[in-house]
């Protein structure tokens, strides 16, 4: 359980931002969604505090493309900051439905998509080997140890 953003991200790095906006200017999500863009998210963290940021669902509007990191003149690791924000947000229950669904699937089956009959048939038609059976106990054990139970129900 992380309590503060600054446990997992160095606040001093953020202070170097001089709000040039090259990040948001390059952000594909900002162009199509009513999102803040990385520049404003960063500024909100600094000026309004982490609470205001991690409880806002709009922070999730990100394609994880990393172009912001590429273009930042101060070499601030924005994706790392956003990952920290997302992790903290998830702990607070600020988590998009679709992600939660995939998470449950991975926890239960070890895969992020459902293998139904059609899939099995298609694979057979192509003479592909069957998908490997996973040691789900092993995976469950790992998930319990890393603490995924903080976010989703692992039972």
């Amino acid at each position: 359980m992380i309590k503060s953003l600054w446990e997992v991200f160095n606040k001093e790095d953020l202070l170097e931002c001089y709000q040039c906006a090259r990040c948001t200017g390059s952000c594909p999500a900002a162009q199509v969604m009513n999102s803040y863009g990385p520049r404003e998210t960063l500024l909100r963290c600094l000026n309004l505090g982490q609470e205001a940021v991690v409880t806002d669902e709009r922070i999730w509007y990100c394609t994880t493309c990393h172009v912001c990191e590429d273009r930042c003149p101060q070499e601030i690791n924005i994706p790392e900051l956003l990952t920290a924000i997302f992790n903290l947000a998830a702990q607070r229950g600020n988590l998009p439905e679709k992600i939660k669904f995939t998470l449950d699937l991975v926890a239960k089956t070890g895969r992020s998509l459902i293998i139904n009959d059609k899939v099995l048939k298609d694979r057979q038609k192509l003479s592909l080997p069957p998908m490997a059976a996973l040691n789900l106990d092993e995976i469950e054990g790992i998930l319990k140890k890393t603490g995924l139970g903080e976010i989703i129900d692992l039972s």
Partner: protein
Amino acid sequence: MKYAFFLGCVIPIKYPGFEKATREIMKALGVELMDLPFSCCPAPTNLKLVHYDTWLALAARNLCLAEEAGLSILAMCNGCINTLKEANLILKTDGRRRQQVNQALEGSGHTFKGEIEVKHLLDVLYQEIGLEKIAEMVKYPLQEIRMGCHYGCHLYRPPRIMYPEDLSEAASYVPVSMDHILAILGAKPIEYSRKFLCCGSALGTNIDPQAANEITREKLQHMKKRNIEAVAVACPSCFSQFDRGQMMLERKHHDGFHLPTLYISQLLGLAFGLDQKNLGLEDHRISLGPFLEMIPDSRRQGPA
């Protein structure tokens, strides 16, 4: 040459044709692939964002399986490569993290040692196999078809993790492998504006597919401006955006781009003259008909 074959989730489940195509071209190129009980990588677009520690531990488990087999990993998907390469690098260099993860792996009998490398299919083709060998296998060159490469983001960003050896001082890194491969296959790779813009896939999977498609739409518009005839991708999620996404865009905007998209293994398979029923050509929503007609091929079997 032998690799641990990392299937991921999307290709074997949603686009098994790509898996088949990859197996076939690797066979033709003399590369052995070994199957291991890998789980979801896990994706950098969901689990990593939610619970970093779990993401790292599950990635480590996958890496350990390959280590135990003594093989480096070949991955077919940008998401998988991003997770596995980054996790590999972190665990190799950060002793504290490595200790943490190995503790989580304790009951499972795996210990991360940092003995293998992780490579994307594109890199195995471009660096390990080499353009010369690929050129030798080309039977049906792709007739100078104007193709736009979409590398996707997770393949090479951030470059200091994904391609540290290729960094020069203060330069912006851009990949070139797919363009060169396409050229060797006889196609004509064309530059277009915003070539390195994201396809938007993760936004669609996590939040809003319509918005994600708008991102893809911008790319399609730029490609069309340069009279590109087909799109080449190296990731099934990017493929989904350009293929199913394009179909959804047509329904919404009614401006048909008619730009078929092909996964890299399919293109090699076509150029090598492999049996087309093994190349997953049925999985496409945007018709491949006109594209295939451009390649004279007497061994065409399977649907046109």
